[in-house]
Structure formats: C-alpha cells, structure tokens
C-alpha cells in the first residue's frame, strides 16, 4: 500500500471540484467557445466604437488606418474577430433554440455541428475576401 500525496486544495464546505475529465462532451466545448468569444467581444467592442469614430471623424487618418489594416497580422486578427463573432452568434442561436423551441436528444450534435460549420464558413469567407 503506497501513499500518494495529492495536491487537491479541497475546500471543507464546497467539496472536491471537477477537472478536465468531466469536461469532454461536445456541449461543454460549445460553452467554452461561447464564453471565451463573448469575453473577447466584450473587450473588443468599446475599442471598436472609439477607433471607428476617431478614424471617420478625421478622414485623413481613416485611409491611413485602412492601410494599416491591410497588414497580414491585422488581417489575421480581423479574421479571428469575425470567427469569434459568428461563433458566438451561432452558438447563441443554438442556445435560443434549446431554451425556447425545445430540447431534443436526436439533433443536439447536429445543431452543434451546424453552428460550428456556419462560424467557420463565415470566417473563411471573410479571410478569403480580405
């Protein structure tokens, strides 16, 4: 009988916690995508408004700004942004469906695949056009 020391950090009142092994099902990954993209968009949005207003208000700088956006690194960032936006939206529509139209076991995975496909498709369209 060996003794393993485990660094568990268990709170007396709240008990043990889940780890990654409990988070392997697709619906959980949909949640992570939704939450991470939401945080990213919430942080980006105020910046988007301010930069847009500044650039348009000063037309001379707008074209300079648009030139800056043509850099590959910026194009990549923009594509990721579009991906985040469409992923968050598609995932959100899936949730609205589950909550208001009803939960059905048979199309859960289909709905997830659809949301992911739409998100990736739009991001690809954007990346190819840009």
């Amino acid at each position: 009988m060996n003794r393993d020391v485990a660094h568990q950090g268990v709170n007396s009142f709240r008990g043990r916690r889940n780890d990654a092994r409990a988070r392997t099902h697709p619906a959980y990954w949909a949640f992570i995508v939704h939450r991470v993209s939401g945080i990213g968009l919430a942080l980006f949005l105020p910046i988007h408004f301010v930069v847009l207003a500044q650039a348009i208000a000063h037309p001379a700088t707008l074209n300079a700004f648009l030139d800056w956006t043509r850099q590959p690194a910026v194009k990549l960032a923009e594509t990721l942004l579009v991906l985040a936006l469409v992923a968050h939206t598609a995932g959100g529509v899936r949730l609205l469906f589950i909550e208001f139209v009803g939960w059905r076991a048979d199309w859960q995975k289909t709905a997830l695949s659809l949301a992911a496909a739409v998100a990736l498709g739009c991001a690809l369209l954007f990346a190819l056009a840009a």
Partner: protein
Amino acid sequence: MIDNREPTLAVRIWRGDAHGRFERYDVPRHPSQTVLDVVSHVQQHVDPTLAYRFACRVGMCGSCAMTVNGKARWTCRTHVDAVAAGEMLEVAPLNHLPIVRDLVVDMAPFFDKWAAAHGAFAPTTTRHDDFARVAPSSAQRRAIDATIECIGCAVCYSSCDVVGWKPAYLGPAALNRAWTLVNDVRDGEGVARLRAVSADDGCQACHTHQSCTERCPKHLSPTAAIAGLKRRVAIAAIKGEL
C-alpha cells in the same frame, strides 16, 4: 499477499476528509468486476477503516455514487473494464459536497437545495375529495414522464460546473424536481415555486453545459427541465405574475 499469477488492478482511493489524500491499493482483477466490487474488496480484505456507501448494488438506489476517473457514476453499474485508464483506477467521493470521510459525502446541502427549490408536492385536496384525473397523454403529464424518475443520487449535482462555481446554485436535481411539480396539475404551490427558482442562483444560472444530462444514470435531462423553468419564469415575469 497478492498471488503473482493473478492479474491485479492498481486503484487510488481518496482517504480522509477535505484535507485527505489518495492512497494506492492493488486488488485482484476479475472479469465483469465493478468499481463497487473493487471498493468492497479493499474494505473487506485490505483496510476495514475505508468508509463508503452502497445499498442495493444493482443500480436502483443511487447510494453508491462516487467520482470514478474524474466522472460521477454509480459504482455498482460501472465495470472496471469500461473505465480503467490503462491499469489505473481512481475513486473519489462525489464532487461539490462536503466530505464526511473517505468516499462518504454529506448529502444535506443537496437536499437543502431540493427544499429551497420547493421540491415538495403541495396538496390542494383532502382524503374526502375525489381522485384527480390526469390524462397520461396530456402535454404536462408527458413533461412529468421525462423527469419523474429522479432518485436523488446527486450524480448530476456533482457533475455540474455551475454548482462548482456558484456554491448557492440550486443545481440540476432540485430544479428538475421543481419542473416536475410545476407540471403537476394537482399541485397548489403556483407562483411561489417559480419565485423560488428564479434567482442569480436559480434556473437562469444554467449554461446548458449538459454535464448533468451526460452523466445521469437514469438518462434524464435536467437541462431540458431547466429550460422549461426558464421559459415558465420568463412568461410569468412578462405577464406581471411573478
């Protein structure tokens, strides 16, 4: 002494309370062995001080629920062959509940939340009244059919990350029971139950992880029940009934 010709299984079992640790045991491995068999072997032949719960051992009572290789399961219905990662098994008490000792948790918070969600039937008739007549094909009874089989084993509660992040979250089982009663035409609780489940720690806190639905040994979907509660509560708020 383990016979060297017998296959063995290495199992790590949580010992102690919140400040405890995993201890390793080597047990004989048999075909069709369940995790409950393994735990029972340790208690009966290796260390009689190991504390754990079980009752029916045939997948009906839910008493033997534990965390096996990170996922909440009924140990009597979990074959070692199906879950052992390599030759290693890890058995811990259910998550999100205070550990009494070893594999035994305090179920009181789980049932306290059941009560807080108004998970009890509120009768409106007496023995002198006629029986209620509920058509089995009615939409409400069919909604109940999908949720009524819950036996309160806490596997869903243990699996839910929102419970882990928000200690006061009512949790999937309590909310599933609330939804069952919301659909019971005989119940008289009405808007009081809707108020009980509508809170930052109530039904609106569910993020549709579906960990509960994934792990429920009775194949229920608390996610669907909670979505029903969200709808019912939203409609009540809009109508000014809440």
